[in-house]
Each structure stands twice: as C-alpha cells, then as structure tokens.
C-alpha cells in the first residue's frame, strides 16, 4: 500500500514537473470592495483562458494586508516561478520583495500601484489623473459652468488623492461651480448612502454628485430616491461597474456616462507575462521587447458604446 502511494506521488510530481514549462505567480490584494473583487475575478478569468495550455502553471494568491502579501511572494519565490504578476498592496513594503524577484531573474510585472524602485520588468496601470479629470470636466460642462456639487471620495490613499486633485483641476476654469462638501464614502455602498442622506438634509440644492466609483454611486442613487430628489441632478461615478453600465445602456436619465479604470488590467498583465515567457512580442511594435511602462487610457462610456464594456458574468 505504502509503495503504491509513493509510486503515485512520484508519478504525480513527475507529471507536474514535466508539464509546466513556465510557472507564473499572481499576487493581488484580496477582495475588500467591489473593484478589488473585480480584479480577483478577472485574474481567475485570465488564468482560466490558459487552462488547456499545459506549458503554463499559475498560482494565484490574495492578501489582506501588505505583510501577508510579502510572505506570499516569498513563498512563490521559494516554490520557484518564472514570472511574477503583482498588484502591490502598498508601494513601500512590497518594494524589497519585488526587487528581489527581479534580481533573481523572475520576469516581474507590476500592476497599478507602482513600487519605489526601477528594478522590475514591466509596469502597467490605469490613469488616475484622467479618471478624476474627465469626471470633473463632464460635470462642469453639463452644468454649464454653474452649480453646487458634492464629492464622495474613496478610502484615503494616494490613488484617491490623485483622482480628487485632478477632479478639482478640471473645475479650475469654472469659478461659479461650488464644492459644497467633500466626504469619504470608503468605496462602500452603505457608507455612501449614509453620507448622501446627511448631505441631502443639509443642502437644499445639489446639482451634481461625483463619487469615486460606481459602488458608491449606487448608494447615492438610493439616498436620492429615498429623499425623492432623484431628478435634475448630474451623477458621475467611475470604473464601469456592471449595474451602472446597465443603467447607461438602458438610457436611464440619472446616469449617462462612466469612465473606466479597468480591473481587467490584471488580465492584460497576465497576458504580458505569458507573451514574454513564450517570446512573443506585441502586435504592431517594431521592437522585440515588452514595453517597460504602460498607462492604460481612461475610456469614456456612454449609451452608444456601453455594451462593449458590459460583462454580465463579471462580478464588478
């Protein structure tokens, strides 16, 4: 019995060793709000696309805090990987381990949140500046340069600060637009609902609301409906969550626009790692190597193109 077991184990390990030519580690933060949930879903989705490719072996890990992620990457490195695709939980604490991976010759792809070093292979991220700027510009134009607006922002963080700053930059040419309040909704539907409820009691006239993402926008819509003030108001969220996209597609007058900050950048990053390991280069590029830095553009979603961004199976 024991002998058989050992034999089977040896066989199994031989099979896995023989089959997987390239091993890729994917390390991302755990789902703690809608968008990160979306990123986990898209990571799984991308990995599933390669399910039939026996030359590839993926290990996906999610972390609840920076130190946990450091430990996970250490484990991945100890296990042996050829490429590391990582969305660092935080920049500074994850920098040393990413640099270590790079120095060991692991093809290192940094996603969205950068590290404090240039020692990595490729960096791919969304455009936080335009994400805030385009929302501000749209609201200002829609209000014809005059009105009272409210900002409900995300969890205090560098990403959030950059977006809010950009939003305000876009409003600079419009002195008659007044920011009544700026409060955190922590990227949560429930918190945004409560904050909006309070703001509606305080301010009799609110002409536009910008929320840091579509999750919070849904909380705001609920508060507006409950206060029966869901008319003549400009609402902008962001990141293209599917329920908001459905509203845009259906021509709902409340929400007419959205701006992308795609959680599926993780899928693109995984593809980049695979292409690099297999020696493929980007279509249309004369150069052989992968680009070092890629900033994805913030795309504008309206009724006309919403169906191209709508993934009913996705969780975000």
């Amino acid at each position, binding site marked *: 019995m024991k002998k058989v077991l050992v034999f089977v184990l040896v066989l199994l390990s031989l099979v896995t060793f023989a089959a997987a030519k390239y091993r890729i580690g994917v390390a991302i933060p*755990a*789902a*703690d*709000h*809608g968008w*990160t*949930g*979306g990123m*986990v*879903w898209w990571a*799984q989705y991308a990995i599933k696309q390669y399910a039939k490719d026996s030359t590839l072996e993926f290990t996906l890990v999610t972390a609840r805090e920076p130190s946990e992620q450091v430990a996970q990457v250490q484990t991945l490195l100890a296990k042996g990987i050829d490429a590391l695709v990582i969305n660092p939980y935080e920049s500074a604490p994850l920098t040393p381990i990413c640099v270590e991976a790079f120095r060991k010759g692991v093809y290192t792809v940094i996603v969205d949140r950068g590290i404090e070093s240039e020692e990595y292979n490729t960096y791919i991220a969304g455009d936080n500046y335009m994400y805030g700027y385009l929302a501000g510009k749209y609201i200002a134009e829609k209000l014809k340069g005059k009105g009272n607006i409210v900002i409900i*922002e995300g969890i*205090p963080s560098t990403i959030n600060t950059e977006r809010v700053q950009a939003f305000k930059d876009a409003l600079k040419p419009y002195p008659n637009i007044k920011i009544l*309040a*700026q*409060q*955190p909704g922590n*990227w*949560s*539907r*429930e918190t945004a*609902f*409560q*904050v909006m*409820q*309070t*703001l509606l*009691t*305080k*301010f009799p006239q609110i002409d536009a609301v910008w929320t840091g993402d579509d*999750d919070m926008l*849904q*909380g705001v819509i*609920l508060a507006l409906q*409950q206060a029966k003030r869901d008319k003549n108001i400009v609402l902008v969220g962001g990141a293209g969550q599917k*329920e908001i996209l459905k509203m845009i597609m259906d021509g709902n007058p409340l929400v007419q626009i959205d701006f992308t900050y795609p959680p599926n950048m993780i899928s693109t990053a995984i593809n980049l790692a695979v292409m690099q390991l297999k020696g493929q280069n980007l279509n249309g590029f004369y150069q052989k190597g992968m680009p070092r830095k890629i900033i994805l553009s913030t795309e504008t979603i309206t009724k006309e193109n919403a169906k191209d961004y709508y993934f009913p199976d*996705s*969780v*975000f």
Partner: protein
Amino acid sequence: MHLRDVISKYGILFALIALILVAGILSPAFLKIQNIINIFWQISYIGIIAIGMTFIMIGGGIDLSVGSFMALMGALAIQTVNALGDTVGSVILSILITVAVGALLGAGSGFLVTKGRIPPFVVTLGAMAIYRSLVLNFANGGVYMSRSTKYSSIGMMRILELPVPMIVFLIYVIIASIILERTKFGRYVYAIGANETAALYSAINVDKIRIATYVIGGISVSISAILISSMMGSVSSSSTGNGFELDAIAAAVIGGTSLSGGKGKIVGTFLGALVLGVINNMLVMLNVAVYLQGLVKGLIIISAVFLQNFRRSE
C-alpha cells in the same frame, strides 16, 4: 447625590447632549427632524448588533465575527428570496430561515466557547474568517443582488413617516432591556460574567446561559442583516459588514459595558450607538477634513468614556 456621582451615572447622556449642542450650533441643519430620524436610521444596524454584543459581553464573552456573520446572513436572506420567488410568503419564509440559521450559528460559537473550552476571542476570530470566506466564495467576490422588489422594500418602508429599521431597533431595545434587567435569565447572564465560579456554586447552568447569549447575538446579527440587505437591495461579499465588530463593541463599551463581563445596560449600549451615530453624522455635517475624521472620532469616544469613569478615577 454629589455632582460627581451624577456626572458619572449619567455621563454618557451628558456627553450625548453636549455633542448634539455643539453639532447644532456649528451646523443648524443638524437639528432638523429629518436628520435626527436619519441618525436613528443609520445606527439601527450597528445598534441591533451591539445589543446582541452586550448580552455576550456581560456574560463574559466577545464576538468578533459579527461583521462577516452579517454579510453571510444578508446573503442567505437574499439568495433564499431569489430562489423562492417574489411573494410575501417567500419573504417571510426567508426571514424565518435567516433568523433560525443565525441562532444556530450563534449556538455553534457558544458551544465551542463553553463545551470546547476555546477562548471566545479565538472562536469568533476563526468564525469571522470562515464566514467572510464563505460569502466571498459563493459570490465569487462580487455582489448578491436581490431580484425581489417585495424584499427590497422592507428596509425602505416607512410607518408613520418613520423608517422601519429605526422602529425595529427601538422595539428591540425595549425587549432586550426587559429580558436582561427584568428576568431570571438576565440575572444569570450578569452572574456568570461577574463571577463564573460563584455562579457555578449557586447551581446556575453556566454553559447553557453562555450559549444562550451567543444565540441572542446570532439572532441580532440576522435581524440587522435582513434590514441592511433589504434596504440596499444587495450585499457586497467584499465590503458589507467590514469593521462592524469594532463599532458594535465600541457602542457597548461607550455605553458602559465592561470588557471583562458582569457589567452593562441595554440603555447604555443604545446611547453608545447613538453617540457613534451622532459623531459620524456630525463629521459629514461639519464637512470635517477626511484625514482628521479619525482624530475627532477618537477624541470624542475617549472623552465620553472618561466622563463615565469620573468617580472611579478619583
């Protein structure tokens, strides 16, 4: 009674009144009837959970799982209604199932604490991780959406202009204070928390009482979950309930419940929840800068509890 004793006995009430005055002066909109109703509405979810927590804490335990427990129960309620169809009957059935499962899971935690002799901190910390992971797993990290308009209307319903969650919360406060302060069971809860050995010698079935406090905790979490999930029409597997355990414990402690058991009152927890609600509302009303909100919140909480300890610190 000396002034000092008065302040100590009603410290939390004084703190609350002071807060309301300050907020009212700095922003008159704070005192609008609608805003006061909103505050009661906003604290009802945490408040109901905090009442369950009060029973558990007086009995000498703690429950760290309530946040993810709530997400799990909300998801259960939504999925049950979705499966049964959009009828009044299925909504009622789903509420009953959710409360029953909540009570059962609470009993499970209580059982592990008492018969399993595992510290409550460890049991409920484990439960917190397990519940969250289950919620995430079934939704794949996404959102549970209610397809039933009958279910989603409960949390938004109003009776005599008052929101249903607020009414449920107030009734819950009254029933809970009667159970805790006017029944034999209530006296036993205090007894096992104050001195377990003495309680054992007085022939109190300590394990049974302690398990019962966790059952009350589970029922409270389920009721709160039903209210919040029906109001939002959804449960986010990743964010719903995050950090609720801290708020619930804070409400109880601000209200005078002892972290080491044996002491506490439902009215205290009610006022504690109200203090938290007023602070959160005030931060928005006064448009306090984002990064400083934690500072203001922390200072107010510490001073509120300091007021109550006035006598003891002398």
